[in-house]
């Protein structure tokens, strides 16, 4: 069993849509959960991180952790074509396989 599992996508949405990206993790000892964005042929860049359970909001992005179900989510409001990228969830140094998002103008 992988430490972090992620819906592989790809996901294609129209501009302005709300996007929901999801992951599950296996070890209940994990406390910090990160989301990274990776554009094609670039390194992953940290978007945001959350601690334990709850929500964290940063502009159009909201990260959510539900420790009871070991579920991690990232919501993107008013999605833009510039959001088109692969999104990776992570805890510690374990990464999901990434969800490729395409936002169509």
């Amino acid at each position, binding site marked *: 069993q992988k430490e972090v599992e992620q819906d592989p996508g790809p996901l294609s949405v129209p501009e302005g849509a709300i996007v929901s990206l999801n992951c599950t993790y296996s070890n209940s000892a994990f*406390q910090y959960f*990160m989301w990274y964005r990776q554009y094609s042929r670039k*390194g*992953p860049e*940290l978007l945001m991180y959350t*601690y334990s359970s709850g929500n964290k909001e940063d502009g159009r992005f909201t990260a959510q952790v539900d420790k009871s179900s070991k579920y991690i989510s990232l919501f993107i409001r008013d999605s833009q074509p510039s959001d088109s990228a*692969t999104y*990776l969830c992570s805890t510690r140094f374990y990464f999901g*396989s990434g969800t490729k998002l395409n936002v169509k103008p």
Partner: protein
Amino acid sequence: DTAVSQTPKYLVTQMGNDKSIKCEQNLGHDTMYWYKQDSKKFLKIMFSYNNKELIINETVPNRFSPKSPDKAHLNLHINSLELGDSAVYFCASSPRGVPSTDTQYFGPGTRLTVL
């Protein structure tokens, strides 16, 4: 100012050769990592150094040898390259604190192609 830099960006070589990839970070972080990203975008930890000391060594063939001359540099040497080593190799660094968030700052990657 580049935070995490890697050289070279591209590396094309023959099977059986030995090659090195270099990484430097100017963020003042104590911890550095090597990751391998395969063609399906799966990012897997290989090694981690904290202040020049090896702290993580995942199941990686011993043809791969990391070296950290100081806490700002982490190099990766690969002996006897094989076709399966073709991938993108990312260096990353992480601030260490209490509590540790393990948030990573990645370099641009080195795309290795073994022919």
